[in-house]
């Protein structure tokens, strides 16, 4: 392979005389234009063997089809079209070389096999590329293959490397290459030890492959290293599951917390809660449309603006529902359930009629995309991380608001003893309306978050309503801590069941478990106690 040949030769090349090379180089580049594909491949290999970074643009141009030959004198140029003429540049130096008519030059043809060869050569040069990302990729490739012929190149690269994590990677790559080279047993043992600190599947399989051919004591050492890596991987897998669980739990928390507020304070089952989430998601869509057309340069802010907008839209719709329907049904929980189900049907159809039944495209701002890579192959995507943090913030804010504001005080008073609160001068109907607005508004916030990870369609809310109810019922109505514990428990349990039982069966198991749990504690984990509880 051209790539390895290149690296093997690199070390020796430094000795070559510079001026002699320059002329040679021109000849080598001109050789690209001659002969058939096979000879061209040989010419590429020769160019690669020079190890001169100057050939990188030449090869890139060749691969892109920008390399031309002038049949008159056999010289090769990089040519780009400008108007009716072609602008020529010298391939190695990048200096201008005049222009030419289209008929005066011929394109140098490449096929896919040549493009592959070129890609390999270029990735070899990438070890010395000035861009750290390119260097990292090249080292990772070398680590994966563990080819001993690249050892000298890697060592040379290590000497020059100044980015810490690439240097570590290079050491590992050298260790991987050492295993397959004819180094001494001592060096190989050392290499195994270096590699055993890594936690990824590629290294494990590399070591396992080595162990299958090696002799004692190398075999034992390699097997021990494989076992160590696998133990570490198992730990990371568990952490990964915990993280996924927290992520799912935070989504459930966001969806359920508003429900807990309305259910806990007013004993109202709001079947339209999922539709409040949906309204929040559609508000995000509308806000983003405005940003796209009016302020495209500030698109990153659209989510921030969507938050209060969704809170207000969903909150107002919630207050409207409370004032127009629910307040006539207090004390008749089952009727409330049916009426709010009707409202949810109407809201779904209204959104479907307005926006259409298909999914709407909600964009993710740059600062929320991408992911953070941790060791052990654990990747934390930014949008999930933001949602977890956001859920925690919302939860804390609600908790503080209920604890420290006068509205929160009134809410608690009405929850605990409505007639007595009335007697103390609290207008419980106002508190009800505002509480319902608050619960719906939080659902709207959840909608903004969910628009980042789920399809924004009229059915968005339906997918969360049963889960949210389970969280509230499991955690116990009227206690936000119960909601938090409920959401995280269900989320994490779900993610731990998934690998064994599959997503659907896992969910069924959770549902059955919650149904059974209700038998033991009919009012949830954190039940309110007292005589007012028994409705």
């Amino acid at each position, binding site marked *: 392979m051209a790539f390895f040949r290149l690296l093997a030769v690199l070390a020796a090349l430094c000795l070559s005389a510079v001026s002699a090379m320059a002329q040679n180089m021109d000849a080598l580049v001109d050789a690209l234009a001659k002969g058939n594909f096979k000879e061209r491949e040989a010419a590429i290999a020769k160019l690669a063997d020079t190890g001169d970074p100057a050939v990188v643009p030449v090869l890139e141009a060749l691969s892109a089809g920008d390399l031309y030959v002038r049949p008159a004198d056999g010289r090769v140029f990089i040519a780009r079209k400008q108007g009716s003429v072609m602008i020529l540049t010298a391939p190695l130096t990048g200096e201008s070389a005049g222009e030419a008519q289209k008929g005066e030059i011929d394109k140098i043809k490449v096929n896919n096999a040549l493009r592959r060869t070129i890609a390999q050569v270029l990735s070899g040069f990438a070890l010395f590329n000035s861009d750290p990302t390119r260097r990292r990729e090249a080292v990772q490739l070398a680590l994966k293959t563990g080819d001993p012929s690249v050892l000298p190149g890697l060592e040379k690269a290590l000497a020059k490397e100044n980015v810490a994590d690439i240097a570590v990677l290079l050491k590992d790559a050298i260790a991987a290459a050492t295993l397959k080279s004819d180094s001494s047993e001592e060096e190989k043992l050392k290499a195994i030890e270096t590699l055993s600190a890594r936690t990824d599947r590629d290294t494990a399989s590399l070591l396992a492959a080595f162990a299958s051919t090696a002799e004692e004591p190398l075999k034992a050492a390699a097997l021990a290293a494989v076992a160590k890596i696998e133990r570490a991987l198992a730990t990371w897998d568990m952490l990964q599951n915990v993280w996924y669980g927290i992520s799912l739990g935070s989504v459930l928390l966001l969806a359920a917390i508003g429900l807990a507020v309305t259910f806990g304070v007013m004993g109202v089952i709001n079947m339209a809660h999922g539709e409040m989430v949906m309204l929040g998601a559609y508000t995000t869509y509308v806000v983003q449309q405005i940003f796209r057309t009016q302020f495209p340069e500030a698109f990153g802010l659209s989510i921030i603006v969507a938050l209060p907008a969704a809170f207000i839209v969903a909150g107002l719709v919630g207050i409207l529902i409370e004032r127009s329907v629910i307040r006539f049904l207090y004390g008749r929980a089952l009727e409330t359930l049916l009426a709010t189900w*009707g*409202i949810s049907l109407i809201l779904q*159809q209204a959104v479907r009629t307005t926006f259409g039944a298909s999914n709407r495209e909600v964009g993710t701002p740059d600062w929320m995309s991408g992911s953070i890579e941790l060791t052990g192959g654990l990747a934390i995507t930014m949008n999930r991380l933001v949602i977890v943090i956001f859920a925690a913030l919302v939860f804390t804010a609600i908790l503080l608001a209920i604890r420290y504001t006068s509205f929160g005080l009134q809410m608690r008073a009405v929850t605990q003893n409505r007639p007595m609160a009335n007697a103390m001068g609290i207008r419980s109907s106002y508190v009800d309306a505002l509480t319902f607005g608050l619960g719906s508004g939080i659902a709207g916030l959840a909608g903004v978050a969910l628009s980042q990870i789920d399809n924004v369609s009229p059915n968005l809310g339906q997918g969360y309503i*049963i889960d949210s*109810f389970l969280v509230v*019922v499991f955690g116990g109505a009227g206690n936000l801590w119960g909601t938090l514990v409920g959401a995280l428990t269900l989320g994490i349990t779900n993610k731990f069941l998934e690998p064994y039982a599959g997503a*659907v069966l896992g969910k069924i198991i959770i549902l059955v478990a919650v149904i059974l749990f209700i038998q033991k504690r*009919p009012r949830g984990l954190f039940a309110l106690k007292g005589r007012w509880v028994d409705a």
Partner: protein
Amino acid sequence: MISAPRASLLGPAGLVFLVIVAVAGIAVPILNLAMPPASPLHVPDYVMTLAGKYLCYALLALSVDLVWGYCGILSLGHGAFFALGGYAMGMYLMRQIGSRGVYGNPDLPDFMVFLNWQELPWYWHGFEYFPFAMLMVLLVPGVFAFIFGWFAFRARVTGVYLSIITQAMTFALLLAFFRNDMGFGGNNGLTDFKDILGFSVQAQETRAVLFFLSAMALAGGFLISRIIVASKLGRIIVAIRDAESRTRFLGYRVEHYKLFVFTVSAMMAGVAGALYVPQVGIINPSEFSPGNSIEAVIWAAFGGRGTLWGAALGAVVVNLAKSFFTGALPEAWLFILGGLFIVVTLFLPKGLAGLFRLVRLRRVKPQDDSENFKIAVAE
């Protein structure tokens, strides 16, 4: 007050209802089969099939009314019992296909051949026998409801909590039946039925008989429910609805009564599902969707809960409207259905039956308040 025992069992409205159902059950098949298609009295096939579907829905609404209207248990899981009965019937019909399936396998239904299954799962055995399948139509929803109810009522899960866990149960079943490896045809469910007891399910005569049977099942379900609610047991059930704790303190084992009503009602829903499947020709997991169960509740509420006949009437009226609007104004249907939920709960707590009652009260002096029409608000 002296009256014939029969009248006190049914009441005038109940009697009228039974007569209408019986007449329809006999007249519609005859008008379909005997009248030439050109005659104005001829009932077209599609009307009979549609009406047969409505009768099954009416039986489902009746079963919901029995637990909700009389015992105050708002079950959001009756759609699941309906579907379980339907699946039991569907399994019998699948076994009757025999080697006439696409793959021509005499032992395995097509979807199992498709999934490369080698032999019939154990729970499919016996369904080739009609009596066994009919037993299962009753037993599967019945036993399921019994176990579920035994856990729920013993733990005194009441009110909205019960509604939510019945909904969770329905949702769990929905997910379970969507799975291919459950052995119930997964997403596609059971379909392509050929014949029932040797008669083609497509044949006009079979459909006429199925219609007749649906009417009889509805009448039978109504009678059984009336017998239950008119008995002393029925009085206790109503007492549980109105004051559960007080009934318990009087020494009644509340959970036993609830369990009885819940199980009987689930079996009725199962029968409705079993009659529904051969008439529509398919059963798939979407029958388990929580929305269906809630819709059945609104049929009962719209017709008038705690009247039984009102629930059946509600099912027919709402579904007539659904058939009309989903054809004529598909956009509007969900608005209407949603509005119905709100209007019924806000303005018509006694449903259509309550409206009739109002009209009658205006004409007759309001003095005799027979128990049948005294509808207290549940809870």
